[in-house]
């Protein structure tokens, strides 16, 4: 069965420090991968998605970047965190079937607090 791992679960970082959040998927190949941010228990804002190794699409301009060094690894980074980067970050995958209603499978998220 497929599983998705996301870590760390919680993180407290000072303003100006770097960030690296990692997400890995097991049990599937060639997944689509996504990074979402959620503010205060509300809707999900798509940050980045990837349809293959080294292929990253950004949805919103921001202080963050993403990379996909391996097929099932997705990394969210920042060189210098801002207070506004605080939030709940969710990684997700979907099968690359080309079908419009493929479901998303989410990790358990990282709660980031920038102080």
């Amino acid at each position: 069965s497929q599983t998705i791992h996301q870590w760390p679960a919680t993180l407290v970082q000072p303003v100006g420090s770097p960030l690296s959040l990692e997400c890995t998927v097991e049990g599937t190949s060639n997944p689509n991968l996504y990074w979402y941010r959620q503010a205060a228990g509300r809707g999900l804002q798509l940050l980045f998605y990837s349809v293959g190794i080294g292929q990253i699409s950004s949805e919103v301009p921001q202080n963050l970047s993403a990379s996909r060094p391996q097929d099932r690894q997705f990394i969210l980074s920042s060189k210098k965190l801002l207070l506004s980067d605080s939030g709940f970050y969710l990684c997700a995958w979907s099968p690359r079937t080309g079908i419009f209603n493929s479901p998303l499978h989410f990790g358990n998220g990282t709660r980031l607090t920038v102080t």
Partner: protein
Amino acid sequence: TQLLEQSPQFLSIQEGENLTVYCNSSSVFSSLQWYRQEPGEGPVLLVTVVTGGEVKKLKRLTFQFGDARKDSSLHITAAQPGDTGLYLCASSRPSGGSYIPTFGRGTSLIVHP
């Protein structure tokens, strides 16, 4: 960009009550998915609806897709405290050969025992 509007934003009810939450768009959905998210966890898929007028049931949850595929509702019968969570609807838009899911802001439900 298709905007998904969910209502109500918040709902606080007693155990045993019935409730309905809504998801609407000004444009036609290709398909619609409902997710439930518990605090501190990622959303979990409940159902996908594709055909206009479609009705799906999942135990005490009934999902309807509007005939014109521009709206959907989730009805919960005899709500229980375990139904507490954030209910999110999502639809996919095409982008570069893939389909990118877009989420509404969600309905936050609290069921009091």
